[in-house]
Structures are given as structure tokens and as C-alpha cells.
């Protein structure tokens, strides 16, 4: 579903974020990407929706070479991915409902159908009653769940999340990961970056360890 081969990313200024990274995530698999901050986890995840382009190597998502995609094709790639950003990127000038409906408004889903899907997505993350609230009124964990609802409202086959448990207490963090596990169980391919080894180890999924831009051991957690 996602495959990296020999991927390097050098930022202008010479900083090398990724060096010769190769791995593959099978369809329906759930994989954790761990490593200390600055190891290149965010850069790696940004290559998948073509937010960044690789300096060398190829990134293939669902059979498409993402690095070579024309700018006009990128929006359609992103619509088929569910992306949860490190800083959530919620819009605080509108309600939870309007945040979650955003991806549907530009893919041309009729309003009635869109509303139904938004409620379904909010139901899956346990926020069904809060659609009229403003994200500021929600706790950190709840805001993160709004971000997840927005990522899955388009029913993507791939879900990519960057540090979804950062700044959350243990209980909220586990709750978030459980939501991802639930999506994995219904067949969604999930890739989660986290610096928290304990969270990654707990769910018995494959773990990729990134350190200084290089991919280390690929082990199955216990």
C-alpha cells in the first residue's frame, strides 16, 4: 500500500532528514514509526501525501509514484488518504461539524450525505454530541479526536498520523490509539508516528524505528 525505496530527503540548507529509507506497509497493516524527535518521522510522513517531495528514491502509495505526481493531481491523492497532523490543524473559527465536513465540501458530496458521514465519523471517535461545539471548548484529547474524524470522513483506505498522542495524558493517549486500532480492524492501513516507545509496544503491531534519518530494526512489538 505504501512503499519507500532508497528515499532521501535533503532540505535546502543541507540538512539531511532521511537517508536511504526503504520499507513497505502492506494493505490493511498497522505500523508504528518510532524514534526521538528530529529523527525524521515527520518528514517521512509528509512524503506520503506529497507535502514534501523526496530528494532521491521513490515513494509509492497505492501504486502511484507520489514523488513524480503533477501538482494538479496531488489534491486527488490527498483525498484518498486520511491525514492527522502533528499540530492537528483544526480551524477555530468554526464548529466541530464544519471542521469535519471540510474535506467533503470540496470533493462534491451532496450536503445531506455529507452531514450523515460527518455524524458517522464523529460517532466513531466518540464525539457525536459535540458537533456544534467550537474546538477551543474541547480538551486536547477531544481536539485530537476531531482531527481524526476529519481524516476518516472521506473513508480513506490509508490513515497516516503524526504524533497523535503527543501532549496527552496516558489515558487519553491510549484512547486515541484504540481508535486507530479500530480502523485497522475494519481493514484500513494505518501508519502512526510516535516518540513514545511504550505506546507503540503495547499494541503488538510492527514497529519501524527511525534514528538520525536512517531506518533501524523492524521488529514486531510484544
Amino acid at each position, binding site marked *: 500500500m505504501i512503499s519507500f525505496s532508497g528515499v532521501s530527503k535533503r532540505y535546502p540548507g543541507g540538512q539531511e532528514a532521511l537517508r536511504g529509507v526503504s520499507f513497505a506497509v502492506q494493505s490493511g497493516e498497522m505500523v508504528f514509526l518510532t524514534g526521538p524527535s528530529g529523527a525524521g518521522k515527520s518528514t517521512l510522513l509528509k512524503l506520503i*501525501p506529497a507535502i514534501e517531495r523526496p530528494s532521491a528514491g521513490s515513494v509509492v502509495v497505492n501504486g502511484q509514484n507520489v514523488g513524480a505526481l503533477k501538482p494538479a493531481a496531488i*489534491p486527488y*491523492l*490527498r*483525498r484518498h488518504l486520511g*491525514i492527522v497532523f502533528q499540530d492537528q490543524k483544526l480551524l477555530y*473559527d468554526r464548529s466541530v461539524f464544519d471542521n469535519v465536513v471540510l474535506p467533503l465540501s*470540496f470533493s*462534491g458530496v451532496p450536503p445531506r450525505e455529507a452531514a450523515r458521514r460527518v455524524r458517522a465519523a464523529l460517532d466513531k471517535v466518540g464525539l457525536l454530541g459535540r458537533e456544534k461545539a467550537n474546538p477551543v471548548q474541547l480538551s486536547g484529547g477531544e481536539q485530537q479526536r476531531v482531527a481524526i474524524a476529519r*481524516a476518516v470522513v472521506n473513508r480513506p483506505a490509508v490513515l497516516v498520523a503524526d504524533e497523535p498522542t503527543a501532549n496527552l495524558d496516558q489515558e487519553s493517549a491510549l484512547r486515541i490509539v484504540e481508535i486507530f486500532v479500530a480502523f485497522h480492524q475494519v481493514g484500513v492501513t494505518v501508519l502512526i508516528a510516535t516518540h513514545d516507545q511504550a505506546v507503540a509496544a503495547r499494541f503488538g503491531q510492527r514497529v519501524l524505528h527511525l534514528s538520525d534519518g536512517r531506518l533501524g530494526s523492524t521488529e514486531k512489538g510484544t
Partner: protein
Amino acid sequence: MRSWLRHHRQALAAALGKLAAQRASSAVSALVIGVALALPAGGYTLLESVRTLTGRMSLDPQLTVFLRDKAVRGDVDALAARIKTDPRVAVSRFVPREQALKELASVEGLTDVVGALESNPLPDAFVLRARDRDAQAIDALAADLRRDPSVERVQADTAWARRLAAVTRLARVAVLLLAGLLGFGLVAVTFNTIRLQILTQREEIEVSKLIGATDGYIRRPFFYLGLLQGAGGGLLALAIVWGALELLNPQIAALAASYGTNFRVAFPPGGGAIVVVALPAALGWLGAYMSVSRYLREIQPK
């Protein structure tokens, strides 16, 4: 197709929502555009009115053909036949010298002068009206008639018409120049207001792009914003011109009446009014297009 329509409806609703949310600044922007556009729109209105006026004034493109004293009867008859059948001549009338003298004598103050004359100094003449009111056509007709052996002189006063036409042309170029300059300004103003609008929505644009919005989707509401602002300015310009005419026309009418005519400046006719609204709308769209495209290029990842 249905989703395309829905996208446009959404974008229009978003643009209207923004205008309503920022009523004061939207009104000021539209007013700036409106006042600026009122100048060329007013000039255009004035020119159109002058043009209909000149059309009316040259309604009698009259030529007087004076014949030679010693013109041969047969030649005169031939000339009369030629004038009668010339397609450029609408109406012609032969004025024999006796009748001309009689007409002159009937003019007040000249009766005595005419009575004192020993012989009739006036020549026979044709008075004719050209079908075409164009000065050039009249001149050509006069030149043709002048070549006839029995013609002494042809009188056709087209100089004033030429001068008026030249002045109107000059004014037209000036108005066009002004309109062009202000149109350019309008694009610049829209470019800037749309840019400010984009900056206030930077986050929304960034997030939308990250989760799969096309550039077209992001552009659309701003297009409508530019379009509505331009059209609003155009409507205001029309309102300003209309208001000015309401104030000026009674004065113009009074002045014209003292010259014995009933001139008044007419509000731009239907087509003109549409241009005054549609053109700024198109220019507003253009300004918005340039502004959004530039912004989207700026945020494009390299």
C-alpha cells in the same frame, strides 16, 4: 455537473457571506471604485448625448448650387435631371432668380434695398438636401456638382461639422484613456483587497490544501469576491452619474432653452449601463485571479 453547480453556489454564498461580515470595508471599497468609475462613466454619458445632438443638428445637410449667368438652357435642364436622379440627393428644388429676389424682398428690412436695385443680381440656383449627413459625403457631392459647366459656385458649410466631430473624437479618446487608467487602478485595488482577504483566511486555505482541496476550489470564492466588488463599484458609479444628472439636467435644460433648443444629457442607454457594470466586474475578477494565483504559487512546496 450538479456538483460543479453546487461548488459555484457554495463559492458565491461564501463570497456574499464575507461581504456581509465586513459590511463597512466592503462598502468603502465599492465606494472608492464607484467614485473613480463615475468619471469615465459620466464622460461617456455626456459624449453619447452630444453625439445624438450633433446627429440632430446636421439633420439638414443643405447645399446651394448657384448657376452661371450665361448658363445655356439645355445645360441647366441636363443638370436638373442629373440632380433629380443622383442617389445621394434626397430632395432638390429649383429656385429661379426672380423667385429668389422675391424671397429676399420679403425679408424684413431688405424690401427697400431690393426695390432700389436696377436689375436682379441673383443667379438661378438649386437648393438640395443630401441623403447622407456625413461631412465627407457632402463634400464629395459638392465637388461633383462644381465640375458641371453651368455651375458657378456650390455652397456647403461642413466645416463646423468637421470641427465638432474632431472635438468629439478627442473627447472620446480622453474618456477611453481615463477609463483605461482607472480600469488598471481597479485591478490593482482588487488585487490588494483580495490579498488582504487571503491573509485573513490563510489557515483555512492551508488546511484545505493539505487535505485535498484543488486550487480551483480555493480560488473560486475569491473570484466571486472580486467580481462582486467590481460590479458593486460599477453600480455605484451608475448611481452617482444618475444622481449628478438629476441635479444638472434642469440647469442644462434652462441653458439650452435660452438657445432655443431642448438639449438634456440622457442617462446611459441600456447597453452602456450594462458595460459600466460588467466591465468593472470582469476587471475585479481579473484582479482576484492575479492575487490568488500569486498566493497559491507562493505556498506551493518546492
